């Protein structure tokens, strides 16, 4: 069983949080939800795991009992399990630890652009943050996105902090391409769209080409992937998606093959990227 019984943790949290002040609720969230996760991270304190997951859309200590009960009634854990079993078989994928939690529906940007569903994946573990009314197709889209990361990360194993900016844009590009292919164009990250060859070449030259090999612990890595401080929103994702979209038009192949195709083979096939 790789899907953890997070519904029990959530229940425990909302049962105990009553009549506690904000600070205590925070600590309770940390001890009930994040402390068990420390076994899955190397030497990272639960406080930092909490902070990190909150930034990526995990429900906050504000979650109330009614919402959490409604969330639990949706039976997300078994829905995710079904999707996971299918995917794993289809892609011959690995066996990560899976944690499904409510998302933070108070975050406006998350609601507006992601319909309050998001996730985070690592070679050995996967987090899904779902809103209380997530539709099945949305869950499948999110799962495909995240699970495709895990497949590719395991096919090209490295220490996490050695993955580069180029690795990240190809990884995200593949994930978004799969979501659109399998679920439809209205799913996935709504900021990602097809752009012209000229714009792709331009963005590539500006943001990726000079620092393809920048590793992910570099502060600029996330800046380029997510886009802030003058960098266009999600520019890394947009470039990645457009590269894969062109690659798959020129050289169609199965998803399993795509997941195992090296960055260099992909880049060499895409004509619209300027050669260095």
């Amino acid at each position, binding site marked *: 069983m790789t899907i953890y019984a997070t519904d029990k943790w959530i229940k425990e949290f909302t049962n105990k949080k009553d009549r506690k002040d*904000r600070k205590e609720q*925070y600590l309770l*969230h940390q001890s009930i939800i994040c402390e068990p996760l420390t076994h899955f*991270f190397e030497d*990272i304190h639960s406080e*930092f*795991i909490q*902070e*990190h997951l*909150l*930034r*990526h*859309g995990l429900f*906050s*200590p*504000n979650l109330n009992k009614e919402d959490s009960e409604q969330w639990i009634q949706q039976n997300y854990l078994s829905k995710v399990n079904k999707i996971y079993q299918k995917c794993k078989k289809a892609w011959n994928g690995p066996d990560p630890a899976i944690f499904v939690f409510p998302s*933070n529906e*108070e*975050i406006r*940007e*998350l609601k507006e*652009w*992601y319909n309050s*569903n*998001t*996730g*985070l*994946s*690592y070679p050995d573990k996967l*987090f899904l943050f779902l809103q209380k009314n997530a539709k099945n197709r949305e869950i499948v889209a*999110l799962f495909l*996105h*995240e699970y495709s*990361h895990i497949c590719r*990360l395991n096919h090209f194993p490295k220490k*996490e*902090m050695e993955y580069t900016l180029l690795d*990240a844009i190809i*990884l*995200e590009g593949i994930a978004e391409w799969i979501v659109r292919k399998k679920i439809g164009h209205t799913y996935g*990250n709504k*900021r*990602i769209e097809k752009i012209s060859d000229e714009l792709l070449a331009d963005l590539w030259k500006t943001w990726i080409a000079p620092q393809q090999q920048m590793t*992910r*612990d570099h*502060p600029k890595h*996330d800046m380029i992937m*997510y*886009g*802030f*401080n003058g960098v266009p929103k*999600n520019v890394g*994702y947009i470039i990645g998606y457009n590269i894969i979209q062109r690659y798959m038009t020129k050289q169609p192949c199965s998803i399993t093959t795509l997941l195992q195709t090296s960055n260099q083979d992909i880049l060499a096939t895409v004509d619209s990227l300027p050669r260095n």
Partner: protein
Amino acid sequence: MSHYDFCRQNVGRPVKIVTHDGIVHRGIIRRVNPSKVFIDPLDARRGAGGYGYGFFGYGRGLGLGIALGAIATIAFLPFFFW
């Protein structure tokens, strides 16, 4: 003291802001207007990593600013130089 007054009096200082939605922002106060505070973010722990769906609460401090009304707590961030 209101969050607005606090921010105005402490431009240039490293702070830790927790918003009502539970997200922690660390950074140096750059400017403040009656509705928002803008910070240069300091990220304590990028090491937790992972690959996401495109959403990341980190950018809000700078690009959009943090709405003063969304702030639950604000405190000085312990800081020093070697």
